[in-house]
Structure formats: structure tokens, C-alpha cells
């Protein structure tokens, strides 16, 4: 028998409910799913990382078109249900009536918009769905854009940190005396405030918003106390309200939310409600863990099984990269409660556990949240902590005498210990799924248990569990395929290219069983690099498999024009070069001429057709491509060194120029930036480069593995060299090892972390024979790499790239 099931709202709760329903019985219902958003179910929690640019929308989709098709769901996305007719048993959307036998309301919440003047101005956004995120990202792209975030709770702070990360000036207005007052005590709120202020976010507590100001769009936010903050974007994150309007209009019982019983039934037995719009036992919920439990119960109810919703306690984490914060339970002070507090001001750690009669009631952790799950577990189980009272606050390993080795600690956790808070998955469920279903990867665990599939903050724990369960056979690296075109990982592909002597991309795809005919935009550039790096002088460099920048040797800009950066070895230039650059700027009406962070000059906004002519002029003045676009050698920054500086110990400028002349043109897995400083004062910032040299009286200290982009990391010392020659040999050998082992797009610091610096030192420092061989392989490959790509193109190479095939503009005008 099939019945018509209509679901209103394609959100997190309904998505989970449909999964349970179809897992149990795919044929029972003929499902129609309405969603006001023009897209299917996705992981709303992860909008914060999407806003921060750490994830893409693609990554957070939970149900794609294939899934709906496979389950036969009739999707009505982009359609808002406007009315439920309970007599006729139909719902209305866009004037069309759809009949139901059973109806599920899962409409979530509506953001609460402060009822102040100006709240409807363009530029005022909530933070609820992907459209909000897109609008915020767009607003952040304006130069010097300013944002005011109203609300210093979880949502507001995640938005503020993400927008700040995108370069906006951000002010957070918060009504209460400290941030996240529902989850944090004042001390932790203070630490959080300090951390966010350290990132340049301005926090204004006890702020009463009076009005949003502006004429055509927002211009500022005014507070009751007279403060005015200028704003191009106002984010309202002041709370949410259950979306109950449909139910109210239909005469279904509504309190704060739509009232449901233990089985998720509303006052109309044919209608269920779940998610944030539902009220159970006088409580509405705003975190996914209980909503997922509701989803399970609702599915069972629909299937005619008995099921009962019993709320569990929930813990909160703030998803701001670099901030560790955990809170659970009740942490208010009271007469009959005791608390244990640990503060470590130096490292910014604060831990507080609230206890009543030897049982944990609540906990707040800041800075070090490793033990969050353990405290939470003790709390939920009501464990008597009398025995370990004195050491409790130091955490699990200390208090239970458990091993400090994380794997052993994982093994020691009880089977019921909760690993994934969002989905309520305990350790036992994961380990038994791993063994019984033969799971081998994080993705497998996510698919079969849901653990780590929502907010992802337990990913580390799940990985440890995989390691503890599978031992050495769990190798997270080996099973990450390069892209959907193959099952093979980067390392395996490289190994086979060498072992089978594969010298072209088609050969590699054929021999390695590629699943697509000609790859994709992920694997082709990687394969091309592996070819060029493995077979210098033999494999052909395939331009069509290169990202546009490396195909036309200039950087594409957001408007489709290009930037041109000529090489200035070691950051040195001459009057003649500057004159030639100035002439080019005049002749081609270059809009922006900028000194880059890499000690050279960028000409921005050049039309693609003009590139060869620009290069011809620069070539004439003796300049070549600076490869500012390359996954290859970029720059060697230098300081003035012993030639001029009163502290200089060696000729850092000279060495930098020598290195750049020796290494330019080389292709590497990711970009490669070097610097040479003349003394430990380090004016060339060598200790945050991929490879850095610090000159000292006794010679040259060679560093590697620094980063100062998406991640910031100081370098590690590789070794000491006595002469320039020795330094050069070591640097070239190190680069060659990286060229041979690095995965495409993996910067040196990531490669070093993966293979271990000991193994790098063993090759490049400890074994002079190996070092020499690496050096010689580098020198050999340079024979083919040191060709100025600009000169080649000035002489006609790839001419088709730079000219239109035909021009019909005149013809149009004539008609």
C-alpha cells in the first residue's frame, strides 16, 4: 500500500527523517517535498565554514538530485507552502493544490529581526540560509566594507569571525553583558571576547540597537547610547522563532512551537511536526542533536511503529577556526552547588566544572576542550565523581590514570561514550560498524553511522577510533582518491607513473583505468605536473591541462583581464627596468601599478590580446616572466645584507639573486617562495617562507616549511651550511625531493608534516651522496625549464590564445 506523504520544509530535520523512512521501507509512501529555498537539503550548520570560505556549498549538500531521484521523491524546491486545508487534506503552494494522507511540518525557524526603524533596508541580512551567505560574501567583496553584526551568540560570532576573515571591518553588538551568555559564564565570555578582539573584531556589549540608518541601503547602525557604527552590511543574528504560521492558520495547537506529543504527532493525528518548529513538553530546540532524534521518532511513527522522543542534553561548540570552546549542561551558580575552576592565564586556558552532590551539572571549557566529551559523558550518566574530585579538572588522562597516548586513551573510553554530539553516536556504534561492515575510511564511517557528518568537530576523534580499531591498516592518506575520475590517491599515481614509465596524460589515464574519458579540472593539472616533474625533456607539457594562469603566463583577474609581474631577481631593479615598466604602463594605459608583497612590480588590468605586446616591450628591456602565477618558483626575497647594512653578516642580496637565477623556471607541486636575510633580525622574513636562509657569522642557517598565507607557521631549521655553494646545493636538493614527493598543490610545510622532517633530513642533510643525486636531478631538469615563456609567446607560440577567432561587431552595427 502506498500513501501520499507531503513534507513541508527541506531542512535538516526533514532530510534526516526521509533517510530513516527510506532505509526502513522505500515503497510505503509517495513523497512530495516542499522547500521554500530553491535547493534541496543541506547541512545548515556548515554555512559558517562556507561563509568563512573554508568549505564550498558543494561540500555541505546532504542529499543531491540523484538521491531524490533514487528514492522517487517529488521535489518542489523554491515553492513555499502557503496554506494547509485540513478538511480537504491538501496543501497549497504557488496556487497549486497537493493532496496528502499524512503531512509533516518541518519548517524550522525564522530569524528574529529586531523591530527597529530601517530593518527593511537593503543590506540587512539574517544568517539562516545559503542566500544569506551569498549576500554576505558579496557585501564583503567591496573594498573597505564594514559589517555590524547584531547578536553575540553562536550564530552572530560565527558570522563575525567569517566576515572578519574576509577582510571586513566588523563590529558585534550584543545586548547582554558578555558574549554567548546562554552557553558561557562571564570568565569564558571574556576570554572569547579577548580572542575575537585580537582578530580585529570590535565587540560592544550591553548595546541596545535603536535604528538602522540609511536611505537606499544601510549606511549605519545607531545605538540608544548615541553610538553610531557605519555599516555596509548589517547581520541580524539576535535569535530565532519557530516558524509556526502555517499551523496556526490551520488551527493546529501552537504554543511557542507547534505542539507535538512523544510520537511527534500534532493535535491533528494525520499531521506530524518536527525540528525547530516543534514544541515538545514545553521545550523548543535549536541544535541538531535533539532534532535528529525527533527525525527518527517521526519516521517510526509514519511507519506505524511505536516510538517515543526523549530529549537528551546537548553540548555546544563554537565553529570558529582557532577558537576552542565547549559548554554543556547548567553552569549557573547556586547555594547548593560547588565549582572547580582551572585557569592558565599564560596559555589562555579556562576550565570550569559545576558539581552538585558529587555529580557534574555543567561544564565550560575554553582554550583546551579535549576533555569536553568526557565531562559531558560523566554528566549525562550522572557518574559519582567523588573518587576523582581532586584531579577531575585536569581531565581524563590525569583523573583516571588513563594513558596519555591519545590512541590508548581512545581505546580506554567506555563503549557508551558519546563521540558525535550532533548525531548522538557512541563509541560502540562506530567500532562495531567498522568491524561488521568492514569500514576503512572516514567517509565510510560518515555514511554508515552519521558520526562526524554534521558539524564535523568530532572528526579527529573518529579518526583516532579508526586507527585504534584498524591499527596500521588504517591509512587516511592512501584512500583519498585524487578526484572522482579515479580510485587512486596522489602517491599511488606518482608511483605508477614512474614504475610503468607513463609519459603522457592519456597514457596514464589508460594504464591506470581512469573512469572518465579526459579527466577533470582537478586531475589533469596534477597529472601534467607529475609528467613534467618526472620526465624532464621527455614528457610534453600539456597546455590544455594547465590552469589558465599557467597556460598564458599571467594572472587572470576578476574581470577577465590579466596582471603582469616581471621578474626582479632578489628584489633588485635598475633605473632602466623601471623606465621600461613605466613606458609599458603609459603605452597600454595600465590602470594599476603596484609593488607586490614579493618585492617586485605588478601591472594590473591588461587585456589578454595585449599580453604579447606588453611582454615584447618588457623582454626588450631584459625582463622576463616573474611566474607570479606558477606552481613553481615565485620569488626569492632578500634584505640589503652586508653590502650596506651595519648588522649584515653575509651578502644576502647576492645569495638571493644567485638562488633565483639558479632556480627560476622550475615547476613544483605548489608555489615555492624563498627568502634570504642577512642576519637573525630577519628583515626578509625568511622564517615564514617555504625555504629560508638566515645568514650568520659562521655561514648560512637553512630553514624550511614556513607559511604565511592561509596558515601561519614558522620554519624549522634544516641545517647549517658553511659556504654559498653548499647552501645552494642543499636548497636545490631539498626542492628536488619536494618535487618528487609532494602531492600536487601541497605546500612544503604540508609535505614536511606528512613525510616527517626526519626523513627529509635523512635525504638532504645526513647523506651527502643522496643530496648530490637530488641536486643533479634538479640541475638536469632546469635545462628544460629555464625558457622564458613570455619570449616564446612573443615569438608566436600559442598565438591562438591571444586573438579572437572572428569578429562580428561591425556586422552587427551594419544591420
Amino acid at each position, binding site marked *: 500500500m502506498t500513501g501520499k506523504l507531503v513534507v513541508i520544509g527541506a531542512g535538516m530535520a526533514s532530510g534526516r527523517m526521509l533517510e530513516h523512512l527510506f532505509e526502513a521501507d522505500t515503497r510505503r509512501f509517495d513523497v512530495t517535498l516542499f522547500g521554500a529555498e*530553491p*535547493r534541496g537539503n543541506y547541512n545548515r550548520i556548515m554555512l559558517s565554514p562556507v561563509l568563512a570560505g573554508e568549505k564550498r*556549498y*558543494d561540500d555541505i*549538500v546532504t542529499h*543531491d538530485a540523484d538521491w531524490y531521484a533514487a528514492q522517487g521523491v517529488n521535489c518542489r524546491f523554491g515553492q513555499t507552502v502557503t496554506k494547509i486545508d485540513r478538511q480537504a487534506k491538501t496543501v497549497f503552494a504557488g496556487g497549486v493544490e497537493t493532496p496528502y494522507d499524512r503531512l509533516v511540518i518541518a519548517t524550522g525557524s525564522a530569524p528574529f529581526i529586531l523591530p527597529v526603524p530601517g530593518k527593511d533596508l537593503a543590506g540587512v541580512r539574517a544568517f539562516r540560509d545559503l542566500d544569506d551567505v551569498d549576500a554576505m560574501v558579496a557585501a564583503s567583496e567591496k573594498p573597505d566594507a564594514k559589517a555590524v553584526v547584531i547578536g553575540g551568540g553562536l550564530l552572530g560570532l560565527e558570522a563575525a569571525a567569517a566576515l572578519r576573515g574576509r577582510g571586513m571591518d566588523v563590529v558585534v553588538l550584543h545586548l547582554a553583558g558578555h558574549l554567548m551568555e546562554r552557553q558561557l559564564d562571564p570568565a569564558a565570555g571574556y576570554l572569547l571576547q579577548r580572542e575575537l578582539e585580537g582578530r580585529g573584531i570590535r565587540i560592544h556589549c550591553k548595546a541596545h540597537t535603536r535604528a538602522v540608518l540609511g536611505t537606499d541601503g544601510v549606511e549605519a547602525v545607531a545605538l540608544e547610547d548615541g553610538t553610531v557604527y557605519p555599516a555596509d552590511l548589517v547581520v541580524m543574528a539576535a535569535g530565532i522563532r519557530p516558524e509556526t504560521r502555517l499551523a496556526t492558520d490551520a488551527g493546529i495547537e501552537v504554543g511557542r512551537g507547534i505542539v507535538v506529543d512523544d510520537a511527534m504527532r500534532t493535535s491533528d493525528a494525520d499531521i506530524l511536526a518536527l525540528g525547530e518548529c516543534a514544541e515538545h513538553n514545553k521545550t523548543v530546540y535549536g541544535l541538531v542533536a535533539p532534532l535528529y532524534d525527533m527525525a527518527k521518532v517521526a519516521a517510526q511513527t509514519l511507519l506505524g511503529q511505536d516510538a517515543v522522543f526523549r530529549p537528551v542534553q546537548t553540548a555546544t561548540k563554537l565553529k570558529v577556526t582557532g577558537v576552542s570552546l565547549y559548554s554543556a549542561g547548567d553552569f549557573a551558580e547556586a547555594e547548593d552547588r560547588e565549582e572547580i575552576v582551572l585557569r592558565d592565564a599564560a596559555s589562555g586556558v579556562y576550565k570550569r566544572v559545576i558539581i552538585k552532590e558529587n555529580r557534574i551539572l555543567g561544564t565550560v571549557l575554553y582554550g583546551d576542550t579535549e576533555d569536553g566529551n568526557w565531562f559531558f559523558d560523566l554528566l549525562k550518566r550522572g557518574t559519582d565523581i567523588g573518587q576523582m574530585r581532586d584531579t577531575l579538572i585536569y581531565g581524563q588522562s590525569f583523573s583516571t590514570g588513563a594513558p596519555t597516548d591519545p590512541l590508548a586513551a581512545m581505546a580506554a573510553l567506555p563503549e557508551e561514550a558519546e563521540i558525535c554530539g550532533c548525531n548522538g553516536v557512541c563509541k560502540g556504534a562506530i567500532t562495531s560498524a567498522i568491524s561488521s561492515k568492514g569500514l576503512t575510511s572516514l567517509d565510510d564511517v560518515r555514511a554508515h553511522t552519521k558520526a562526524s557528518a554534521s558539524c564535523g568537530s568530532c572528526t579527529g576523534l573518529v579518526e583516532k577510533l579508526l586507527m585504534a580499531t584498524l591499527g596500521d591498516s588504517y591509512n587516511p592518506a592512501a584512500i583519498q582518491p585524487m578526484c572522482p575520475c579515479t580510485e587512486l590517491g596522489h602517491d599511488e599515481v606518482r608511483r605508477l607513473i614512474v614504475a610503468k614509465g607513463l609519459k603522457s596524460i592519456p597514457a596514464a589515464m589508460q594504464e591506470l583505468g581512469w573512469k*572518465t*574519458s*579526459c*579527466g*577533470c*579540472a582537478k586531475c*589533469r*593539472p596534477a597529472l601534467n605536473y607529475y609528467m613534467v616533474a618526472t620526465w624532464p625533456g621527455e614528457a610534453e607539457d600539456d*597546455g*590544455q*591541462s*594547465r*590552469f*589558465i594562469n599557467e597556460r*598564458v603566463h599571467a594572472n*587572470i583577474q*576578476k*574581470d*577577465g583581464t590579466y596582471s603582469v609581474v616581471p621578474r626582479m631577481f632578489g628584489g633588485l631593479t635598475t633605473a632602466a627596468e623601471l623606465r621600461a615598466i613605466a613606458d609599458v604602463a603609459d603605452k597600454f594605459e595600465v590602470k594599476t601599478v603596484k609593488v607586490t608583497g614579493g618585492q617586485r612590480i605588478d601591472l594590473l588590468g591588461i587585456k589578454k590580446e595585449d599580453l604579447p605586446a606588453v611582454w615584447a616591450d618588457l623582454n626588450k628591456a631584459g625582463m622576463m616572466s616573474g611566474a607570479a602565477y606558477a606552481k613553481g618558483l615565485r620569488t626569492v626575497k632578500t634584505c640589503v645584507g652586508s653590502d650596506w647594512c651595519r648588522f649584515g653578516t653575509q651578502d644576502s642580496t647576492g645569495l638571493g639573486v644567485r638562488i633565483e637565477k639558479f632556480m627560476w623556471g622550475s615547476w613544483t607541486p605548489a608555489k615555492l617562495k624563498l627568502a634570504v636575510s642577512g642576519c637573525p633580525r630577519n628583515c626578509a622574513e625568511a622564517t615564514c617562507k617555504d625555504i629560508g636562509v638566515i645568514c650568520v657569522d659562521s655561514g648560512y642557517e637553512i630553514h624550511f616549511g614556513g607559511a604565511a598565507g592561509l596558515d601561519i607557521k614558522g620554519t624549522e631549521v634544516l641545517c647549517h651550511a658553511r659556504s654559498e655553494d653548499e647552501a645552494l646545493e642543499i636548497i636545490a636538493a631539498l626542492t628536488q625531493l619536494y618535487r618528487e614527493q609532494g602531492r600536487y598543490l601541497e605546500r612544503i610545510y604540508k609535505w614536511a608534516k606528512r613525510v616527517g622532517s626526519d626523513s627529509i633530513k635523512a635525504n638532504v642533510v645526513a647523506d651527502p651522496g643522496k643530496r648530490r643525486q637530488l641536486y643533479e636531478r634538479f640541475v638536469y631538469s632546469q635545462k628544460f625549464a629555464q625558457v622564458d615563456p613570455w619570449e616564446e609567446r612573443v615569438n608566436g607560440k600559442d598565438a*591562438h590564445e591571444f586573438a*579572437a*577567432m*572572428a*569578429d*562580428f*561587431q561591425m*556586422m*552587427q*552595427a551594419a*544591420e
Partner: protein
Amino acid sequence: MNDWIEIGKLDDIPRRGARCIQTGSGRIAIFRTAEDRIFAIDDRCPHKGGPLSQGIVHGSQVTCPLHNWVFSLDTGLAQGADEGGVRTYSLQLHGDRILIDAQSLTALSAA
């Protein structure tokens, strides 16, 4: 009715590559796949205007150079989770001559 205009030769375009033609109201990108199939679409990504002719061509799809949206050259539609599409135009291959439907050029200027 149909009026076909020659815009160039097949070999003007590299395999797995693209060239553009200029029209009064914008650029049209002409693609050639590894199997010598040809397609014409607007050279303007619906996301943020990226020049699709500059993307990497794989199968009968292209990846936008600016933020990696993937489009079907056949339908002009964005693939995967991204939503949007670009206009497609009819082409014919006569021997090695590529022809475009002149109407698509005029329709464009009328639009």
C-alpha cells in the same frame, strides 16, 4: 531561413580548448573537445562573469577559471550543486569549416 556564417576552421581551436568570437553584444566561446565535437556558449559565467573560454575543458564540460563552477557545453547548465546556466548557440561543422547560425547573432543584438 537558416543562414549559416563561417567563423573559422576546426584547427583554429586546440583540442580541449576554446576560442572566442566577438559579437556586437558580447563574446561567444567556441569549444572543441578531445573528440572534435564543437560547442558554442556565452563567454560569461553566470556566477561572476568569468570568461568560460579560459577554463579547462574535460569531456563535454568546462570548468570556469574563476571559481571552478562546471558547465555542460551541451546544455549550458551548471553541474553539481551550482545553479545557473549560459546560453548555447547552434554550430555546424562542414568539413573543417565551423558555421554558426546567423540568427543567433542577430537574435542576440535584438535581445
